[in-house]
């Protein structure tokens, strides 16, 4: 997904916002399957292998549970598959559950893709122009937290090695950990004094702060942003006109296939496949170039 991540942060933000929101609010199973397809492709193209396996292991059981819980607790729908005691187990509820699980999977996948494509600094950059000081503070917080965690571990280690964490009872254990925490907090405050000095020395208090970032908005970004907005508009039009409206209850039916609905499906499919498409084009170019060299 290098081709996609290299886009301007504003394009990325708009893109992910529209895909995620559309996915969450689409009832229509066709749209949900499109979203899932896009999400899976993104994950296959970009997530690290170890991460993928881990994600599958942890989310699959969860998704299964979601798919099965819905029919166990929701008894709407007219197609009864079988009776559990005196409660009906309906096809509609089962399909609804499966669909919900797919949506959840899609959302998880898209959130993962978002995290990989838009690291914190890109997001901060987007707000940097409007609020440079707030952005600076957030930036510092982003650096501070991992640092604090590292120091907590180091202090815990140091004090454990000295025998300060070997209490017999629970109370003593808690007291030991509190000691580590208070020590690290004071050290952090002490360090923050020096950070403040370094900021002061570099004129942090001066009025008229600007915000610098590495990103430039190019023509390519403009074209892609327009495309994203157009596709989103088409899908939204389908939503608002009610053309893609769908409900599992009371009886499961085929999704609508009017021309307007098909347009919306196509638009959403194109939208969710956009990162994969860009990636494919890029890879194709590379292959072509390499074969020429």
């Amino acid at each position, binding site marked *: 997904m290098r081709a996609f991540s290299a886009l301007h942060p504003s394009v990325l933000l708009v893109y992910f916002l529209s895909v995620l929101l559309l996915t969450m609010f689409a009832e229509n199973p066709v749209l949900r399957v499109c979203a899932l397809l896009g999400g899976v492709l993104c994950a296959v193209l970009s997530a690290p292998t170890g991460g993928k396996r881990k994600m599958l292991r942890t989310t699959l059981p969860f998704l299964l549970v979601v798919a099965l819980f819905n029919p166990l607790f929701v008894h709407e729908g007219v197609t009864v598959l079988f009776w559990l005691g005196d409660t009906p187990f309906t096809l509609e509820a089962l399909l609804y559950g499966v669909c919900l699980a797919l949506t959840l999977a899609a959302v998880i996948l898209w959130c993962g893709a978002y995290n990989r494509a838009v690291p914190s600094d890109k997001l901060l950059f987007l707000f940097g122009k409007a609020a440079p000081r707030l952005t600076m503070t957030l930036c510092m917080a982003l650096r501070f937290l991992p640092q604090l965690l590292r120091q907590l571990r180091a*202090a815990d280690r140091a004090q454990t090695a000295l025998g300060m964490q070997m209490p017999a009872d629970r109370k003593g254990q808690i007291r030991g950990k509190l000691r580590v925490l208070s020590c690290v907090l*004071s050290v952090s405050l002490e360090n923050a004094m020096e950070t403040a000095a370094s900021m002061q020395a570099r004129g942090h208090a001066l009025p008229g702060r600007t915000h610098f970032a590495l990103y430039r908005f190019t023509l390519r970004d403009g074209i892609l942003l327009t495309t994203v907005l157009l596709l989103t508009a088409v899908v939204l039009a389908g939503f608002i006109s009610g053309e893609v409206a769908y409900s599992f209850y009371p009886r499961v039916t085929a999704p609508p296939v009017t021309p307007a609905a098909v347009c919306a499906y196509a638009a959403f499919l194109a939208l969710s496949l956009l990162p994969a498409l860009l990636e494919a084009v890029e890879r194709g170019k590379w292959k072509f170039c390499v074969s020429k060299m």
Partner: protein
Amino acid sequence: MEILRIENVSFTYPNAECPALESMSFTVRQGEFVVLCGETGCGKTTLLRLIKRELAPHGTRTGAILFDDVPLERLDAHTSAGEIGFVLQNPENQIVTDKVWHELAFGAESLGLPTQVIRRRVAETASWLGIEGWFRQDTDTLSGGQKQLLNLASVLVMQPKMLLLDEPTAQLDPIAATEFLNTLARLNRELGMTILLVEHRLEEVFALADRVLLLEKGRLTLDDTPHAIAEALCKTSPPHPICEALPSAARIYRLLGAKKERCPISVREGRELLQKYSFSETAPVLPNPSIASKNETPLAELREVWFRYARELPDVLRGLTLRLHAGEICCVLGGNGVGKTTLLNLLAGTDKPYRGKVRLAKKESGYAKTALLPQSPLLLFTEETVRNDLLSLLQILDVPKAEREARVHAIAQELHIEALLDRHPFDLSGGEQQKCALSKVLLTNPDLLLLDEPTKGMDAACKQGLVTLLRTLREKGLCTLIVTHDAEFAAETADRCALLFDGEILSVAPPRDFFSENYFYTTAANRIARGFCEHAVTCEAVAAAAKPRGKADAPC
């Protein structure tokens, strides 16, 4: 043309009895490289901070400080922030943002420069300093040396006219420190940057500086060229406390008591001086306490130890073997990230090897005890005063209440920290913090003391104190394992030195043999004496072996 003029400046901190600075007057010309030195607490940092308006300490100041002929108070805020660059001691704490490129741009952002200008300045600074390679990295992934270079770079992006640096190399390993100082020298030479540097490690800066200012108790006592200062200091008696910090060449000169020659301040000049002397074949063996024989049971032993932090990460230690005996001081040297700290953690028991054995000798009550002093001693302090901190440790260790006061008193006396007992640990200087943390560690009555870079940020006098202390502890049968970058310190302190490289201990030998066999990784004294007196690795040893030509040739 002078860029900075200090006129009769005195400064007193609020509630202080005596002034921190007294009638200080000097000027700095444009393009000069000036080194400010003096003992800890002599007012170096105060003076430097007074020159940078944004960091000026609270208190009352008299006299005038003029930058570019304008009094500091009347400088425009942008000029004061941008044209006077300031780099502090701790590389880590000065960094503000999470990305290297953003950190570079920080100062320029403050000045309110437009994006295009910042882009160009950041680019040219990064390429001039050769940091393009890690331009897009997170600041957390950098080494200490890289961090300090980044701090310098982010000041340079503001295009200052003068740089003030407050012990910028104190927290760096020697190789990174040399690299940093060379960058400063390059700035001075190639760009004509005016530099005012506060340092306590004078080995290298003397050769780089145009002028040295010596501060003593808030007064400017010497202001001259490095050669003249070194010569003046070498000829005072009793020896000035700062003498221990002078470059090795100058210290050898002092010990030799040479009078006619010019005082050398670099390895090259030191070698020129030694040509005028003759040497006995080998350096006299300095009194070296007996090292336990090989077959005696070791106090601690690492046998074929393999370690890594996570399954998918590379091995840090690969088949490391090391034996430690009671009553010895062993120094492990090695570059950054070779696993020196990991070695200590294994012995302290906070990490476990996945292959191999860590064995501690059996004692009457269980196994031999280890105690680790981590690199940042502050992580050990939990109370408001040093005394309470020590008492609380004894309480945790279940020492009877009646004994506690006495034990704290005893340890404080041994380490000469009685005066520090009622102060807050954070208010102490780096060396004092180290000492207090050491006393805390020693309260656990360890058999094996593990020290991680104990000399970091210590001045020469403090280091000397540590050497003496470690020797007394050795007399008591304590075994000390020190992990350090500091070759001079190791040469002076250790009974055995070991080189850790690529996860293994490569050579273990007494410092005399260890350093004289090394060509690069050795003390400055040894580099000066190479070819004259191979086995001398300390200034004292070189001086002891040398005889003036005339006398040695004469028949007895």
